[in-house]
C-alpha cells in the first residue's frame, strides 16, 4: 500500500482491489455485539478539518475507533486557526504531539500533499478544494462492486456539477482505473474545461444516457462553492438534469442510483427516488466506515509506533 492517500490517481487497480477486499472483511465488524477490534491500539489519528463536514469526519472517527485508535478532532473553528495559525504551524504542532495519521480536509487543492512535506505521519486526504476526495471514490467503488458484483465493463454515468466536484474527479479516475465505461453528463456551464482529457465520454442529454447506464451517480449541486449563476433556477436544473420517478423507470433492470450526500432533495434527485429501492445512498454511508477502516489498516501497520 502507498504511504499517503492523497489522490485516487496514486492507486493502481491492484491497490484499489486490496482496499476493497480488506473493507469487505472489515465490514462485518459493524454487525458484531462488540463493534471493535484491537488492531490500532496505541495509534493516534487526528481529524484535521479546515472545512465543515459532518459525515466524512464522523465516518473517519468511527472507522478509527472501531480499530481501537485514539482520535483527536481538530476543526478550524474554535481552534488556533481562527487566531491566524497557518497550516504549517498546525502541522508542526501535531507532529510534535506524535500523531500517527492525519486525516485532512482543506479548501485549498494540494493542502494534503503540502502537509506530507512537514510531518512524518501518514496523511489521508478527506477532500481538498475541487481536487480530490479519494475515500469517497473508494467507498463508491466498494458499493458498486457489492451491489453489481463487478466494476470492469460496467456503464456508469456521473451527472451534474462536475466542475465544482472533487468527488467526480476522484470517482471518474477510480472507475476508469477499474475498467468501467464512464459518461459525464451535465450542463456545459458545470463541466470543467478539458473534460475531454478525463478518459470518459461526455453528454449534454441525460435522457439519452439513462437507458444505457448501470450506475447513475448524481452529484450534489454545490451552491456554496458557486460564485456566479451557472443555471437559471433549481426547478429548471431538476427538470433538465435531475433524476425523478420517470427517469428512474427508464434505467435498465438492476441499475443503481448513487449520491455522495448531502442531498438537495427536489434539485438533483427527487425525494421519492432518494428513498427508492434501487437507491443505494444509505449503503454508501455504511460502506464509508468499512472503506476508511481498510485505508487506516493498510496504511498504519508495519513499523513500530513512533516514539
Amino acid at each position, binding site marked *: 500500500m502507498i504511504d499517503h492517500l492523497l489522490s485516487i490517481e496514486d492507486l493502481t487497480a491492484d491497490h484499489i482491489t486490496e482496499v476493497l477486499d*480488506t473493507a469487505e*472483511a472489515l465490514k462485518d465488524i459493524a454487525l*458484531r*455485539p462488540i463493534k471493535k477490534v484491537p*488492531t490500532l491500539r496505541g495509534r493516534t489519528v487526528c481529524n484535521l478539518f479546515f472545512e465543515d463536514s459532518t459525515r466524512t469526519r464522523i465516518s473517519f472517527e468511527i472507522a478509527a475507533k472501531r480499530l481501537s485508535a485514539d482520535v483527536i478532532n481538530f476543526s478550524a473553528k474554535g481552534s488556533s486557526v481562527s487566531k491566524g495559525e497557518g497550516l504549517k504551524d498546525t502541522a508542526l504542532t501535531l507532529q510534535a504531539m506524535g500523531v500517527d495519521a492525519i486525516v485532512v480536509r482543506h479548501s485549498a487543492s494540494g493542502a494534503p500533499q503540502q502537509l506530507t512535506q512537514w510531518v512524518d505521519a501518514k496523511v489521508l486526504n478527506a477532500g481538498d478544494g475541487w481536487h480530490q476526495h479519494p475515500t469517497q471514490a473508494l467507498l463508491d467503488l466498494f458499493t458498486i462492486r457489492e451491489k453489481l458484483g463487478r466494476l470492469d465493463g460496467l456503464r456508469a454515468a456521473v451527472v451534474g456539477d462536475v466542475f465544482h466536484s472533487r468527488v467526480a474527479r476522484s470517482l471518474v479516475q477510480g472507475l476508469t482505473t477499474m475498467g468501467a465505461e464512464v459518461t459525464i453528463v451535465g450542463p456545459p456551464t458545470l463541466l470543467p474545461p478539458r473534460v475531454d482529457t478525463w478518459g470518459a465520454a461526455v453528454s449534454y442529454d441525460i435522457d439519452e444516457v439513462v437507458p444505457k447506464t448501470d450506475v447513475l451517480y448524481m452529484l450534489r449541486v454545490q451552491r456554496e462553492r458557486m460564485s456566479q449563476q451557472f443555471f437559471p433556477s433549481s426547478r429548471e436544473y431538476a427538470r433538465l438534469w435531475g433524476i425523478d420517478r420517470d427517469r428512474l423507470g427508464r434505467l435498465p433492470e438492476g441499475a443503481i442510483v448513487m449520491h455522495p450526500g448531502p442531498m438537495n432533495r427536489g434539485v438533483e434527485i427527487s425525494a421519492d427516488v432518494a428513498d427508492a429501492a434501487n437507491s443505494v445512498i444509505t449503503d454508501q454511508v455504511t460502506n464509508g466506515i468499512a472503506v476508511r477502516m481498510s485505508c487506516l*489498516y*493498510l496504511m498504519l*501497520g*508495519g*513499523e513500530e509506533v513512533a516514539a
Partner: protein
Amino acid sequence: MSAVLTADDIRRALKRMAHEILERNKGADDVVLMGIRTRGVPLAERLAAHLEQIEGAKIPTGSLDVTLYRDDYARTGPLPLGQTVFPDEIDGKVVVLVDDVLYTGRTIRAAMDATMDYGRPKAIQLAVLVDRGHRELPIRADYVGKNLPTAAGQDVRVRLESVDGHDEVLLEHAAEVTP
C-alpha cells in the same frame, strides 16, 4: 523432511479427538467448533463430520480469522484479512478452537480474544493436530492429535487434502533449515 503423521494417522487422530470432545463435554449438544484460518477450518469440518457420525447430530462449525487480534501488527504490517463466521450464538456454549499446529500460543491468545468479542461462551477449549512445544504464553491444548517435541529451528508442515491435495505432517530437521 520426514513424515511424522501419515494420512491414516491423521484420520485416526481426528477420530480419537472427536471421541474425547464428546466424552469431556458429555455429548455434543452445546459444542461449537471454530476453525482458525487457514488450516484449522478444514480440520474443524472434519472433526464435525466425525462427531456427526458418532452422535448423529450436526455440529455448528465456523471459521475464525485472528489477523486483527494479532500482537505483531506494528512489526509485520497489514496482512490479508479473511472472513470470520460464527455459525450460531455462542453465549453459554462450549467453543472448541481448532488449529493445525500449537507453537508459541500467540495465535490462540488472539483467537480467545476474538471469540470473547462475539459473546460469552460457557467454556473455550482447544483442539490441535500437532503440539510442537515452545510456548510463550500460559496456554495448553485440551485435545492433541500428536505431541511432537521439536527444536526451535525446526519447521512443522501440515498438509491437508482440501488445501494441499493430500494429508501429511512433515518435520523439517534443523540441519535442513538454511541459516
